[in-house]
């Protein structure tokens, strides 16, 4: 295809992506270098019957004017990145000196908003992704062994947790594990603890969120693996059987290598999707015990006093995280592309 024709074909899509993805990233970067104006203070003299007192008041009109004139706020350089709400190097340094063990240090570091969110986001990503792969494979193998008539309905039901809006899915589960909901009550009976509440404990909240993550993503892995199982080549399987391979050996040496590229694909998708975990925290109202990077940004932007600088800084660090996460994939694809000889 000629360069010119290519250009005209791709133009609408390119304009949309440049205007609403690339430029906003630039805008986020610029915003991350600024902080909101402080309120303009003015000293006034109040003179009454008992003499004069000096008082400092907020000059609202001047503050408004300054904010309207420079909506970005004042330039702050990289200070947003190093402040307590983000990378917090100096705070971390102090904590490192004062804490007597590594566990103590971790406990203290969990009070810093950015690192707290990072810890949950990474734990969520790297716990949910492998569990999704395993559960998806197990269901796919199970469904593949079912009589054909049952497979369609099983797939239908399986698609529900994945298709449903993340916020709705997490609300549905949240209402059930509520201490007055059906699962919450069942757990209380099982544990023999009438005051058990999943919301109250950080550990249980984390587990609950990850259970939601697996519940909503396992169908994706299941469908992809199931489709892969339909195309397992017959010949190597028969050859393996003739050579006396057991069922387990056939799975290990024929089926799993065949599914390997699919597993890589699912892992890639899951890493991307789990890294932006956000809606479950809103749905489960878990912000007291677990916050993610996306949730922090949402929280900075919400309300009347939106902190654009802080939100933008967290966004930049999140984007950096995404790029680091994707680097191995990008490099692999680059090698493949070159090997194909372009």
């Amino acid at each position: 295809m000629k360069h010119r024709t290519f250009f005209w074909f791709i133009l609408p899509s390119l304009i949309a992506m440049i205007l609403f993805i690339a430029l906003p990233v630039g805008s986020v970067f610029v915003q991350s270098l600024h902080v909101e104006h402080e309120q303009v203070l003015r000293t006034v003299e109040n003179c009454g019957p008992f003499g004069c007192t000096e008082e400092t008041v907020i000059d609202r009109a001047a503050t408004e004017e300054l904010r309207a004139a420079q909506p970005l706020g004042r330039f702050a350089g990289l200070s947003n990145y190093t402040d307590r709400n983000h990378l917090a190097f100096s705070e971390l340094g102090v904590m490192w000196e004062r804490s007597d063990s590594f566990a103590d240090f971790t406990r203290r570091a969990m009070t810093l908003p950015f690192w707290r969110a990072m810890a949950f986001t990474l734990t969520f990503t790297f716990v949910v992704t492998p569990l999704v792969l395993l559960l998806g494979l197990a269901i796919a193998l199970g469904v593949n062994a079912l009589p054909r008539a049952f497979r369609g309905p099983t797939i239908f039901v399986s698609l529900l947790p994945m298709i449903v809006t993340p916020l709705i899915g997490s609300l549905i589960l949240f209402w059930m594990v509520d201490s007055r909901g059906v699962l919450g009550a069942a757990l209380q009976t099982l544990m023999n603890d009438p005051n058990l509440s999943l919301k109250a404990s950080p550990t249980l909240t984390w587990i609950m969120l990850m259970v939601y993550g697996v519940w909503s993503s396992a169908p994706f892995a299941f469908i992809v693996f199931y489709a892969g199982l339909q195309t397992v080549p017959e010949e190597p399987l028969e050859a393996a059987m003739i050579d006396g391979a057991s069922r387990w050996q056939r799975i290990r040496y024929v089926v799993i290598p065949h599914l390997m590229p699919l597993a890589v694909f699912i892992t890639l998708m899951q890493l991307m999707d789990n890294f932006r975990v956000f809606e479950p925290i809103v749905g489960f109202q878990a912000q007291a015990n677990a916050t993610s990077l996306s949730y922090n940004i949402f929280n900075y932007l919400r309300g009347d006093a939106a902190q654009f600088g802080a939100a933008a800084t967290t966004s930049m660090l999140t984007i950096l995280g995404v790029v680091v996460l994707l680097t191995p994939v990008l490099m692999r694809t680059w090698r493949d592309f070159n090997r194909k000889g372009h």
Partner: protein
Amino acid sequence: MAATQRRSPLLIAVSTALVLLWVVVAAFPFLWTLWGSFKVQADFFSLADWRNALRGTFTMAQTGSAFTGKGYEGAWVQEEFWRAVMNTMIVVVCVVVISLTFGTLGGYALARSGFRYTFWLLMIALVFRAMPHITLVSGYLMPFFQWNVWGHLPTAIIVLVAINQPFTLWMLHSFFLNIPKDLDESAMIDGCTRFQAFRHVIVPVMWPGVITTGLFSFLLAYNDFAVTAMLLSQQNQTMIPKIASFLGSTQVEGNVMFAVAAVVSATAPLFVLILFFQRQIVSGLTAGAVKG
């Protein structure tokens, strides 16, 4: 493959039990919430005994029958959920139509051009696809306030179209790769321009891929919370932020049932979608995988 092997009964039992368990885990929450949405709050969130939700003790006492439509009435009439439904319909239809138009043109170009920059465009699209939507929202808010475009439906629509583009491009790109090159190239030898070849030869055969991609665009627009919650004003809210706002103001007894009813109402279209398009959804999920 399955027919040629003999399996031990134990293995069959274990794998069937696993699948059964999964089916229950996947379906029960939805059935339970559907059932509970016709009860009053004291039954669905029962302090005394969870079986109240089954028997409807309080529902009987408060309304005189075992089922009540009060939650639905409250959500749709009192809280004007229908307005949010209308907004969602407008947003979803516009997003799907515009992203497919842009996406088919771009995806076709990417599939037919072998130059190095197509690779880079696809890689950049992959990075864009991976970016959390909320990071972009923090870039939009301030300029949108400045230009006075914040809060309107068209703003949310164009933003969702843009966010959707990377995925749409990837998916349609792989569908177009499956359509043989000879088809449009022979049309061009016969004297068509590239666009005429696209219009008369490719468009008639591309619909299966476009429908599948359209389903996923629909889901993205329908399921979005981050963009619509931050970029739409109160009266332009779509369903999902509206449901979230029910939760914020549900201190009054019974209001949480509005949210339950709204959740069931918003799940119903998705249920119908799977019912009719199960095959396309499955093929769409695996399309990316097959291509690698």
